[in-house]
């Protein structure tokens, strides 16, 4: 059983999160509120929620683990975020918010359909989202379960039920509104955790001088700007995560949640700045764990992913508790957003793509049912799926970026982007991601020079959108609906 202080703070965190999530039901008056939190929140809540949705558990465990084992290579991912949120706001923020003023937008397929006037585009995007959501949630099941199990001293199964049961319930009750409000709370926790970790890591190690000098004397590669990876990996990571940010559905959906157009103004700074602060945890936990090992204060870690727990074991209980709460917050905030997106895709987007639509009142009811069913399915898949989970889990950031980026970044800013271009880019993104999945995970091959395959998929999908659009005409220029054209002109 864990330290009682840690247990108390973690339990208090769960109770507060659940209460906030359920409270959000007061804001839900329409299906658009439920699925998309359409124009429900102000800038601070939405911006902090945006950063919290993007910062997943990987930033707390996987990231520091990679720093521990590889040095700076993985930092090219997190450091890209100082520009990623800005690029998102510049490229699609205004467009999505303007469209939300003219139409009851609640999902990304809603936006894609508004622009390209195509049930095929809507349907393909919805399918892509559901596949990505199940894959993502599947990977979080065991991770979340192990964390709760270790913290509270319960079985793995009980841990899974606690963390995902709570997430499922508040998301079922209030949909995306609950997701955003709890994301805001969870984002604040992550920020407090990150600042505490930074201060403690620097005090513990004697500042950056002590930290990096000690590590560098053991292995200079661990303190250089590349680390043990390749340049192609590091640079492609920077690119994919800088531009791919706006293609993440759990970010881009936040723009139509803004109550007022002026709320766009400081959003990028608040989101980006918040992420930058929280990424200090990724950077300094990893290096501090390395320092502890190199300076022989703790034995070498059996697995790199133990870096975070090894560091936290050397910190005061109250800080460790806050960081663990931050880790749970990161897992739950991203998961709730994906559950809401998946539910919307199944209840609202796929039926519309097939020419059917539920009455709005029934959409919310079915949204709740599907949220529960989807979460339970993801839990079963994540728990029993084994190899398949690891396989599909590789569909992540790059998969979403390659599917949605061409539609949003190019489609909402270029009148000559066509329906055929959108369909081509979606099909290519889906195909390439699955082909690379088989190539790497089933056949065991790797692309040369450490190139991450989703970088190739993303670039190929963008090029496909441009080239196919140059030779086709569907839903382009004069065929664009007048209100969409007006939003693209401002």
């Amino acid at each position, binding site marked *: 059983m864990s330290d009682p202080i840690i247990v108390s703070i973690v339990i208090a965190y769960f109770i507060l999160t659940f209460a906030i999530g359920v409270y959000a039901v007061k804001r839900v008056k329409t299906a658009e509120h439920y699925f998309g939190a359409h124009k429900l929140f102000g800038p601070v809540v939405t911006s902090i929620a945006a950063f919290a949705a993007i910062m997943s558990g990987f930033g707390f465990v996987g990231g520091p683990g990679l720093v521990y084992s590889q040095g*700076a290579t993985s*930092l090219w991912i997190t*450091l890209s975020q*100082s*520009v990623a949120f*800005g*690029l998102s*706001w*510049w*490229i699609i923020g205004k467009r999505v918010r*303007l469209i939300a003023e003219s*139409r*009851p937008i609640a999902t990304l397929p809603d936006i894609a359909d*508004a622009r390209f*006037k195509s049930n095929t585009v809507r349907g393909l995007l919805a399918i892509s989202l559901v596949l990505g959501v199940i894959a993502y949630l599947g990977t979080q099941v065991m991770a979340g379960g192990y964390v709760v199990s270790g913290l509270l001293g319960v079985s793995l199964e009980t841990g899974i039920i606690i963390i995902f049961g709570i997430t499922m319930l508040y998301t079922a009750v209030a949909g995306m509104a609950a997701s955003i409000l709890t994301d805001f709370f969870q984002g604040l926790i992550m920020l407090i955790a990150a600042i505490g970790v930074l201060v403690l890591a620097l005090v513990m190690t004697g*500042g*950056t*001088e002590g*930290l*990096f*000098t000690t590590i*560098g*004397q053991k292995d*200079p590669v661990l303190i*250089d*700007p*590349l680390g043990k990876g*390749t*340049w*192609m990996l590091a*640079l492609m990571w920077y*690119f994919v995560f*800088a*531009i791919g940010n706006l293609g993440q559905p759990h970010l881009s959906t936040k723009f139509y949640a803004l109550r007022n*157009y002026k709320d*766009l*103004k400081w959003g*990028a700074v608040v989101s*980006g*700045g918040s992420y*930058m602060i929280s990424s200090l945890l990724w950077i300094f936990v990893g290096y501090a764990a390395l320092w502890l090992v190199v300076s022989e204060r703790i034995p070498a870690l059996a697995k790199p992913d133990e870096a975070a727990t090894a560091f936290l074991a050397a910190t005061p209980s109250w800080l460790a508790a806050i960081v663990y709460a931050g880790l749970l917050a990161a897992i739950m905030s991203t998961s709730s957003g994906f559950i809401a997106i998946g539910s919307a895709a199944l209840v609202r987007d796929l039926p519309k793509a097939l020419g059917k*639509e539920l009455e709005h009142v029934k959409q919310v009811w079915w949204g709740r049912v599907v949220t529960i069913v989807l979460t339970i399915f993801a839990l079963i898949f994540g728990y029993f799926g084994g190899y398949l989970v690891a396989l599909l889990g590789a569909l992540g950031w790059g998969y979403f970026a390659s599917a949605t980026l061409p539609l949003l970044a*190019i489609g909402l*800013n*270029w*009148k*000559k982007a066509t329906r055929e271009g959108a369909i081509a880019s979606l099909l290519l993104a889906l195909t390439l991601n699955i082909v690379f999945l088989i190539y790497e995970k089933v056949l065991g091959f790797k692309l*040369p*020079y450490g*190139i991450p395959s989703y970088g190739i998929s993303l*670039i190929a999908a963008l090029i496909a959108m*441009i*080239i196919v659009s140059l030779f086709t005409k569907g839903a382009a220029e004069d065929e664009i*609906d*007048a*209100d969409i054209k*007006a*939003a693209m*002109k*401002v």
Partner: protein
Amino acid sequence: MRDKLVLAIGVTLFLMLLAAMTNSWKAFGYLMALNLSLWLVFGAMKGEDKIGPAIWLGFIAFIIWAGCLSVIFYYWGLFKGTLPSFTIGGMHPGFFVLFPLMWLLSFIPVTLCYALLFDKWILPEESWNEYLEHLKKIRESREVGEYE
């Protein structure tokens, strides 16, 4: 102008693909800096041809990225596999340029400038009101996509 930008984005993406498959990582780095700068201009410009401060933002962002990458590559190569002959706050000089320098400097044109330019360039109140007026006319003429 927007058409030309899209083509430029497409061409640089293709060149990035070629650079990646041939492990020309320095070329990839500079092409990436160019590509991201083009995306910034693409997002920051208005209408089909109104470029305004977008071009300066893109230019400054490119200089920051290309400049920082150059210094990072240089010091990485100079001290490859060895302890650097000098450090900045204990940090490898190339590492220091990556974090915190490039991390903070790139934030200024790409993220901070969004807030600084919002009222005057991105979405002035006048533009918003004109847009609402236009929407009203569209609804009245029943051209808008129907509420579903």
